[in-house]
């Protein structure tokens, strides 16, 4: 572990359950699909409780795979952790199945929303409360409806007929029903109009302020780095950069490759080749 303290907490807020080493840590993780396809090649990452951490990277970098490894969903995709470990508060969790991990308080919101289209909004939310046994369903519903008032208006509607933004809120609300400690969001802004991306962004901040730690996977780097305290850049299965968001936002390479800013005057083919050389970030 390289020393990276102190961590930037997202936007502060009360931390309901912080005690001891409250951190979700991935160290030197290697994941293989179908026994042959090496997707993660030694990834390490830390998500301290209470923070928002952004995970950036191009398509195929391994972002979703990393989330699946944490939430125990690799099995479904014939994937397997072959090296390294994932720990929650110091306890290893990478050998647990998905239901156990959910009960430990880690919930993933899958990419593409994946609402249960033929269920009503309320039924979707009740499915999300499956792991919240022994808690009052009404309280959880109220909490989620307070965050997403539009869901309260639509609670009897069939989820498949909601708009894209509403479906994303439903997917997030469903995950929050069991009041998880950690929320893993996979591309929540995918396919949404800019105004809705703003709204989702504000909601993530609100969720974090209520005490839920967020690991945010995004292609929309501007949005993600705007709210995250710390960011990781993943490229072909390796973490190539790992800095506080502010530093990432100021980094020339990140500005060029992920934010589409800067890089004036480099327009020729030769310069593109130059990109490639320069892009070996840490070598």
């Amino acid at each position, binding site marked *: 572990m390289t020393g990276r303290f102190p961590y930037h907490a997202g936007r502060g807020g009360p931390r309901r359950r912080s005690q001891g080493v409250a951190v979700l840590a991935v160290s030197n993780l290697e994941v293989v699909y179908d026994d042959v396809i090496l997707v993660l090649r030694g990834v390490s990452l830390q998500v301290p409780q209470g923070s928002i951490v952004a995970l950036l990277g191009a398509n195929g970098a391994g972002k979703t795979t990393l989330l699946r490894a944490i*939430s*125990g*969903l690799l099995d*479904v995709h*014939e994937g397997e952790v072959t090296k390294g470990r994932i720990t929650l508060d110091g306890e290893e969790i990478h050998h647990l*199945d*998905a*239901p156990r991990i*959910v*009960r430990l308080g880690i*919930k*993933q*919101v*899958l990419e593409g929303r*994946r609402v*249960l*289209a*033929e*269920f009503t909004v309320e*039924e979707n939310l*009740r*499915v*999300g*409360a*499956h*792991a919240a*046994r022994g808690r009052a369903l009404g309280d959880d519903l109220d909490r989620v409806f307070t965050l997403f008032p539009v869901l309260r208006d639509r609670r009897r509607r*069939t989820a*498949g*007929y*909601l708009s894209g933004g509403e479906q994303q809120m439903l997917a997030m609300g*469903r*995950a929050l029903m*069991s009041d998880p400690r950690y929320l893993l969001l996979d591309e929540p802004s995918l396919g949404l109009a800019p105004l809705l991306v703003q709204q989702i962004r504000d909601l993530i901040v609100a969720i974090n302020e209520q005490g839920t730690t967020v690991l945010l996977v995004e292609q929309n780097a501007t949005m993600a780095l705007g709210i995250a305290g710390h960011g990781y850049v993943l490229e072909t299965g390796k973490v190539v950069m790992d800095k506080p968001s502010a530093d990432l936002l100021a980094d020339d390479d990140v500005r060029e490759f992920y934010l589409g800013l800067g890089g004036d005057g480099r327009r020729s083919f030769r310069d593109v080749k130059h990109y490639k050389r320069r892009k070996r970030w840490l070598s």
Partner: protein
Amino acid sequence: MARFLGALFGGLGQGSAYALIALGFVVIYRSTKVVSFAQPSLMVAGATAVSYLAAGGDALLPFWVAVPVAMLLTGLLAAGVERVALRPMVGKPVFTVAIITIGVDIVLRVIVNRLIGVNIRAVGDPWGLSVVTVGGIPLQVRFLAMMAALTLVIAALGAFFRYARVGLAMRATAHDQEVALAQGISVGSVFALSWAIAGALAALAGMFVGTSSGIDQNTWIIALKALPAIVIGGLDSIGGAVVGGLVVGLVEALVATYQPAWLGENFALVSPYVLLLLVLLVRPYGLFGTREVERV
């Protein structure tokens, strides 16, 4: 007219028993996407259990206790089969798994046949062929019991899938397994529970199939009537299974009553399959099969 009403009533009654078996197929299919060909053996196993518990002079239990006990035992047996023979095959092509259920069916049937023996066994039902006459039409009590049982089961299943936490989890698993897992639903338990429910329903149906006529080593064939029922109704539709079962019973009874001589004596036995063919020509996904909800 009385003849017609009699056929109608008998058809709906027998159809209720078919519907109970069909419901088992549908419950398993919805969670696992596998058509379980083990239902016939589970049906006979349930009927045999009732027979052992409640029939004869030295009956262990009163009939009304024996039936739920047999349902429970068959449910446990089914869940055990799922755990041992089918769980290791999760993720394999459904065709492979379906073939395994045929193997399970054969194994269970051999064991159950041994228990049935060569003679016809009574199931110890209190109805026999007794009849009540309503408005001049004689109605067999066993058919009334079948309809009542089906109604109860539909109401119970409907409430279970709509309101119970586990029922909702089963529906969620049927729609999207990864989403279900991500909400902390143990998909394996859902599979086992589906099998248990299907087993219990098969046992109930088996008891009804055995009323008055008893059970023998060929009783399992009756469970195959559920196949046209579920295909007519749509493989993944609870309501479809019920309607399909009733329709199969009705068609069979009406054909048996009115078949012209040139069709031959036992055309009623074939009629559900003819109907199946006709329905498939018009609606390949069955009468109530899902067409997905999608935003356009």
